[in-house]
């Protein structure tokens, strides 16, 4: 015991630092006039609020009217592609167990964290709902029904609502943010394989409702899928402003609305937890971050606290809005109506936060694709290519990257405000009521723009 204490003291006090976190991208960001950019971004969002209050309501509604494209022909059967997706998951899990130990050479962490969490989630939110074809559960479940002739024997307990999925998503965020080694191939193999089997079992037992209430990834993908520019409308493929499917779609159940808030809560804490500001709250020297294992508990508490704070502020704003508008609409109805307006903000954060990871770690994905078995192949003809982070050490490219991130945050908020406006017009008969009801949320969104841009500009210590 004494040894453990002494060892702890040694870590705390005697660490003669070798090389510390170096300047790189963050250093150049600190040289940018980010305060000017932040002011401009916040002004753009505030201006949107002002303009919407003045222009006729139909204008905003018209912005969300999609353009009908061609009638949808036959597409690849979802069950077949889903079965293929399941095979890929199984192969990746095996690679996680038996493949290379280096997480940036092993296809499992690359696929989970870069291809799926950054890439596929972004495509789902920006482009179209591919999860219908790419999810690894519906196909195998249909196959099992076909082989056994048995339908799901149990009914999903209605009392559970969306709770299992919400807990699942919080657990996912906890793993992503607090686990000391979320990229470790073997550890990830256990989690991905176990989760896949567990959810397949749930689906087999309780039927499709399981995926909509208890499977966090499908819940996340369905929500983001409603943000996509491509969607179905009256049997046709349609293209519209991000959020058009929400503007014209059904109101969310309360549980799904809560899930949408958690997407933003988890996303914004995954950014805050890296800042000098947060590390100062924990009493940690930001130039000498002691490693994730030293902050597991504070990170989990912070994650839950950030979500609780976000939900509280959102409920408060909605409640004040309902009061301002005066009568006719219950708080629950308003919450269900407005919650999806958070989705564009969450998606904007997701893109901004992971852009640099995508640019850096995406190169490892390419390197793996070019030589998947580690045999020295060069399928993609990358030549003597090495993963480079030079663009993070060059002021011009750092500026472009920062402004792209800031753009994602600002555009997300502008769309959120437009969307909230349209949703308010659907909720209230009179335009004045709609504007008043939306006002507190709009103020919140302007403030959140400021917070989001501040996060991007803040020095980070992790």
């Amino acid at each position, binding site marked *: 015991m004494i040894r453990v204490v002494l*060892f702890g003291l040694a870590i705390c006090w005697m660490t003669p630092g070798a090389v510390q976190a*170096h*300047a*790189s991208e963050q250093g150049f960001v600190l040289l940018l006039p980010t305060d000017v950019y932040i002011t401009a971004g916040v002004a753009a969002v505030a201006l949107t609020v002002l303009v919407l209050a003045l222009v006729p309501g139909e204008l905003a509604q018209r912005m969300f009217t999609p353009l009908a494209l061609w009638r949808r022909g036959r597409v690849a059967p979802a069950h077949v592609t889903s079965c293929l997706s399941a095979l890929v998951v199984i192969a990746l899990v095996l690679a996680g167990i038996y493949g290379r130990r280096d997480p940036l050479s092993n296809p499992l962490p690359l696929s989970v964290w870069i291809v799926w969490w950054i890439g596929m989630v972004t495509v789902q939110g920006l482009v179209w709902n591919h999860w219908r074809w790419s999810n690894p559960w519906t196909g195998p479940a249909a196959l099992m029904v076909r082989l056994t002739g048995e339908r799901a024997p149990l009914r999903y307990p209605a009392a559970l609502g969306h709770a299992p999925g919400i807990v699942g998503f919080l657990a996912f965020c906890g793993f992503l943010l607090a686990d000391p*080694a979320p990229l470790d191939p073997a550890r990830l193999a256990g989690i991905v394989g176990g989760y896949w089997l567990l959810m397949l079992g749930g689906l087999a037992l309780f039927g499709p409702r399981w995926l909509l209430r208890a499977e966090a990834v499908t819940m996340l993908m369905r929500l983001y899928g409603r943000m996509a520019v491509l969607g179905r409308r009256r049997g046709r493929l349609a293209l519209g402003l991000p959020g058009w499917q929400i503007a014209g779609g059904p109101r969310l159940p309360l549980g799904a609305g809560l899930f949408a808030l958690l997407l933003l809560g988890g996303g914004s804490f995954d950014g805050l937890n890296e800042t000098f500001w947060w590390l100062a709250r924990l009493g940690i020297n930001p130039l*000498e971050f002691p490693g994730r294992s030293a902050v597991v508990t504070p990170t989990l508490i912070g994650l839950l606290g950030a979500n609780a704070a976000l939900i509280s502020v959102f409920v408060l704003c909605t409640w004040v809005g309902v009061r301002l508008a005066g009568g006719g609409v219950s708080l629950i109805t308003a919450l269900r109506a407005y919650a999806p307006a958070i989705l564009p903000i969450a998606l904007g954060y997701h893109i901004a936060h992971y852009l640099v990871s995508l640019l850096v770690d995406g190169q490892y994905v390419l390197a793996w694709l070019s030589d998947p078995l*580690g045999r020295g192949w060069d399928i993609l003809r990358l030549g003597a290519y090495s993963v480079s982070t030079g663009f993070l050490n060059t*002021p011009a490219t750092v500026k472009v990257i920062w402004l792209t991130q800031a753009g994602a945050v600002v555009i997300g908020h502008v769309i959120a405000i437009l969307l909230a406006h349209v949703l308010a017009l659907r909720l209230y008969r009179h335009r004045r009521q709609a504007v008043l009801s939306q006002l507190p949320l709009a103020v919140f969104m302007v403030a959140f723009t400021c917070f989001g841009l501040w996060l991007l500009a803040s020095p980070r210590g992790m």
Partner: protein
Amino acid sequence: MTSTPKPKQSLSRRGALKTLAAGAGAASLPLWARYTHAQTAEPIRVGFQIHRTGIGAAYGRWYGRTTDAAVKVINDGGGINGRMVEIVAEDDGTDPKRGAEVVEKFATQHNCDVGFGTLFSHVVIGSAPRAGELKLPYFVVSEGHHVASGMLNRYTLQPGITDVKSQVQAMAPYVAENLGKKVTMVFPDFAFGHDHRDFFTAAIEAQGGEVLEHIAIPPSETSFTKYFPKIPRETEVLYHVMVGPAVLTFVKELGEFFGPNGPALFGFIDSLEAVDISSPGLEFLEGTYFWEGMPRYAQADQSEHETFYRAAVGVDANGASVSDASDVSTYAHMFGCWETLHVIKAGMEAAGYTGPDDRAALIEAVEAMTDLPESQAHPQGAKLFNGKTHQVFGHQYISKVEGGKMVRVHTTSIEDTLYPDEVDYTTQSF
């Protein structure tokens, strides 16, 4: 070069080695025999504790590239004792607790012969006790003083990179003689900065100089203008070792404060490792001096060994990646991986290393090393290994920024870097 640990092959490498060359090792074998043996024997497994994620990731990338290049050179030359070297890379997340787990995996799951490659001090300090318990030779590349200070154990060695204490003290003679004897130090207010403060203050006093003012900057600071008025007017040399994201701001504000009439500036390249010295905003560094572990820019008299090393790692004459001129390497530190792997090779060959049973013999063989002449194995320069303190000592370089490049103006002697032993690990049992 990363690879999957495979189950032990049934072929007895011990038997094979005995047949081929008893004791002295396969290095003396003709090439064809080395080759055929290398095809059949189990590889030497080097557990590479790499900072893939966390605050060390930028260094990890270059440590990885250098390690891959060194292993290729060693394997192309017949491997170690005729056996190929296989790198088993595990991410430690730049996290001490995780680091200890990784060391344990090397010893118990991956059948590694040695552990290698750790850079960040807190990970070394967190991992070394586990390496000692598991009796896994642990070769760190950290430049921290923790090895030579005696706080670690007999299984932990640092034979490929010098430590910060020797680096700092070796700067004092040149600074006192050429830049000035009245020094003001600006450093971040935590262990890293305190090391510089303590080691350099003592060293400059030994040269007849003095430190007029110690200016400790809180680590979370991102603007520095308010600290500059504390710099005494009679300061001849400003010694700075700022690190972290705000270091570019520091340089910019320092330039704005002093203009062209400031004191001589002396810094450690750690501040700007992997940053292009000719970046906009860093113009003020022109004419200032830096410690470099190994000169980033190819010098006019670059040795053939360094030329070979640069080409093998894929670094151009400006210290950047040959595949992307904007990707500046961590040149002042990463040679440590190359040299450490060559020390492991020399140690294993001297010990006739055949497997984990010979780990103690490997450590004794490395402890017995003294002079490591400049060579392809030691492109940074000649070195002197101290078997008692498990720490290597070597030349340090001082470069001046001229025309946006760093030009070497001084090479210290190895004697300048020496200090009295603080530990004798050889007295500890295995």
